[in-house]
């Protein structure tokens, strides 16, 4: 996938994503209770925490799939407002990969990858297809370009979903449990793709419980519970010396599960 990954580009100090006191309610239920988070360009964040702790909600606020009630979010200098122009601008910079792949079943792999660039970036078909083929090759699935999603395995579908997001040329990639829906034997191929992407310097926030992945690529591991960031630390510290009781308990459960 890459030939220049020996010296991973270091994360810089420019913040790519800033969340300031972000609060989110679902009706009367507070799903995010004042999130403060700053992610530098090139930084890789792994987000973990128990079910219902607000991990998905947090990353879905960043590309405004969820509206939030309070606070501010900036992505690459663009302040996310409620107007569609800033939402459009942010979504152009932010790619997202979902647990269930969400490939479009009626489009071929190639068409899945070219749809948005042709419609939102106004690329011509030739250009969009060339980009798509290059990125499908990068996720090692170019030979499947003319198949339909249902003809691929879960791992292959997820790699296509990653390529599809990359076709928009995003500066940030958000992953929401990208390997949770996969059969165990397919987890590795997707994680390998993500590792390679990380090595190329992509800014990434990954919701995942793959602790091996966290150790390997994360600059910071963030632990959430009840809509709050409870603890954040570099992986070596996070796994060996977690400071909060809830983190310890969570890690205990995760490790027991493996």
């Amino acid at each position, binding site marked *: 996938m890459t030939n220049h990954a020996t010296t991973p580009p270091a994360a810089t100090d420019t913040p790519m994503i800033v969340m300031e006191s972000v609060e989110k309610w679902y009706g009367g239920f507070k799903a995010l209770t004042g999130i403060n988070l700053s992610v530098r360009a090139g930084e890789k964040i792994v987000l973990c925490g128990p079910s219902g702790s607000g991990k998905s909600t947090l990353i879905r606020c960043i*590309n405004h*799939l969820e509206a939030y009630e309070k606070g501010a979010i900036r992505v690459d200098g663009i302040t996310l407002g409620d107007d*569609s122009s800033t939402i*459009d601008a942010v*979504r*152009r910079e*932010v*790619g*997202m990969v*979902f647990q*269930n792949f*969400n*490939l*479009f*079943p*009626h489009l071929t792999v190639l068409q899945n990858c070219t*749809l*948005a660039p042709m*419609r*939102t970036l106004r690329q011509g078909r030739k250009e969009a297809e060339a980009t798509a083929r290059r990125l499908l090759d990068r996720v090692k699935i170019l030979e499947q370009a003319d198949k*339909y999603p*249902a*003809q691929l395995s879960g791992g292959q579908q997820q790699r296509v*979903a990653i390529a*599809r*997001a990359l076709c*928009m040329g995003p500066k940030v990639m958000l992953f929401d449990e990208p390997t949770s829906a996969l059969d165990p034997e397919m987890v590795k191929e997707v994680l390998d793709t993500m590792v390679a992407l990380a090595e190329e310097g992509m800014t990434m926030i990954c919701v995942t419980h793959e602790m091996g992945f966290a150790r390997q690529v994360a600059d910071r591991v963030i632990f959430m519970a009840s809509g709050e960031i409870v603890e954040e630390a570099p992986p070596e510290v996070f796994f060996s010396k977690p400071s909060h009781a809830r983190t310890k308990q969570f890690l205990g459960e995760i490790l027991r599960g493996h």
Partner: protein
Amino acid sequence: MNYTLDFLPVIDGLPSLLAACLGTLGLALGGMILAIIIGVGGVMLRDSGIRQVRWLVIAFVELIRNTPFLVQIYFIYFALPLAGIRLDPTPTAIIALGINGGAYAIEIIRGGVQSIGKGQIEAGLALGLHKTQVFRLIVLKPALRAIYPSLTSQFILLTLTTSVASAIAAYELTSVAQRIESDSFRSFEVYGAVTLFYLVMSWLLMRIFGLIQSRYLSYPVK
């Protein structure tokens, strides 16, 4: 009493009956196209998020689905001139069929749209597509595929309903048959033949619907 069959009037009338079949198919085709437009447009309006528009669509569907088609076609035929719009029976019939079929199509297509997972829509939005693009490019085709059997049987029904347009003397099979019947008094023979023609037309349409499905709406699914 002995009834002797006499198909001569049917045979003599065959050219005009066959031509009238084309009239029927024309009404049906026009009605279906209008119904699709109303159906898809109606679903988009209904889900547009504007409350008044949503209620307007619901009211339209309820009105059409709870009144007889014969009354609807009379209403359109006699009410339009009052509004200063003068139309021949055939275009009037197409409009009435389209409106009627459209109301049913809204309900059917909406069912299909609701069967599409939220994840599909979110994936489209996350890629920067707008809501209407997501609907048109991502939701519509799988939705139509999901409800295609219901939609096409509704369209067969619409085709058979064209016979009601004889009430305003639109050009179609039933009205031509009525004329031949009243000239010849060969009711059994005429309506027997007409029944067969409707059957053949329905069958033909089903074949065409099947071809459209395999050409435009089929893709592998798990």
